[in-house]
């Protein structure tokens, strides 16, 4: 089999993924349903905090390095205070029936119009009215950092 050899596994077998997880018009997230999701900017802030906390904050693994570069490049909000504000705005949506996944997608993709948001996150189709969605998108864009 291609790839690095994995040592004889000493941990209990993980449950096999059902294989039909998808995030299209219907959200089937498998064992990630109801798991809190992070937008790219939130992840950046969290990784920075973990690294600054010292101790075992950072690792040299490929996955970690590439992920840090990725979040640094694609975070739409650089300042932790702004990220908290965006979180507050989008958390109001959780009460309106959005899932964690959809909330994090809206905070990551920073759409300009309700049409764009519905196209990129198809499961939003019937969950919010156009005005509500436009309001949230406007609030989020005001906080965007264009530097």
């Amino acid at each position, binding site marked *: 089999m291609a*790839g*690095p050899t*994995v040592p004889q596994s000493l941990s209990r077998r993980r449950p096999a993924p059902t294989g039909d997880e998808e995030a299209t018009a219907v959200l089937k997230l498998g064992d*990630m349903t109801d798991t*809190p999701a*992070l937008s790219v900017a939130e992840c950046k802030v969290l990784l920075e905090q973990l690294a600054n906390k010292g101790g075992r904050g950072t690792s040299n693994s490929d*996955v970690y390095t590439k*992920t840090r570069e*990725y979040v640094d490049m694609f975070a739409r909000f650089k300042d932790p205070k702004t990220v908290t504000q965006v979180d507050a705005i989008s958390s109001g949506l959780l009460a309106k029936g959005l899932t964690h996944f959809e909330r994090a997608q809206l905070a990551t*993709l920073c759409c300009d119009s309700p049409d764009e948001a519905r196209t990129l996150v198809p499961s939003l189709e019937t969950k919010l009215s156009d005005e509500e969605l436009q309001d949230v998108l406007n609030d989020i864009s005001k906080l965007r950092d264009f530097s």
Partner: protein
Amino acid sequence: MFFVKVLEHRIHLHPSFFGAQASAYILDQLYRDREGSNTGTMMIVAIIDVDDISEPKIVPGSGYAEYDVSFRAIVWRPFRGEVVDGMVSSVVNNGFFVDVGGLSVFVSKAMIPQQLKYTVEGATPSFTDGVDQTVERGSQVRLRIKGIRGEMGQMFAIGSIREDYLGPLLQ
């Protein structure tokens, strides 16, 4: 998509480590085993903290102590149908590769709009429509993940930019 997930891991401790530093050794082992690992469906980016280390149980026959450690970690799991942003790492004549964190997504020519054609200028291959949209090494692109395949330790994915609001992002 990044998630904060509570995960469990079973660690075996050799009897020579039974002592005051046992818990420190278990944490070391946990970080070494899990942080930065790719299970084939998700990548564990960083461990946030450890929730609980169970009471040890001696494994009959081998003398090792077995601990069940429960911890919270930032994991990254791609979903089919999810829209993500990424950076183009290479362009070939039948598509291009995009790096989305630790995952390399291939966008084939069939999933690229007709207007974007493969051109080579000097030594730089790119997909461009000649006007304002160009996809070349280093460009940022928004794509939708169309399919994912996972093996232990690696993930492969294909994506598409052939839809509204997808494609190269304005820098």
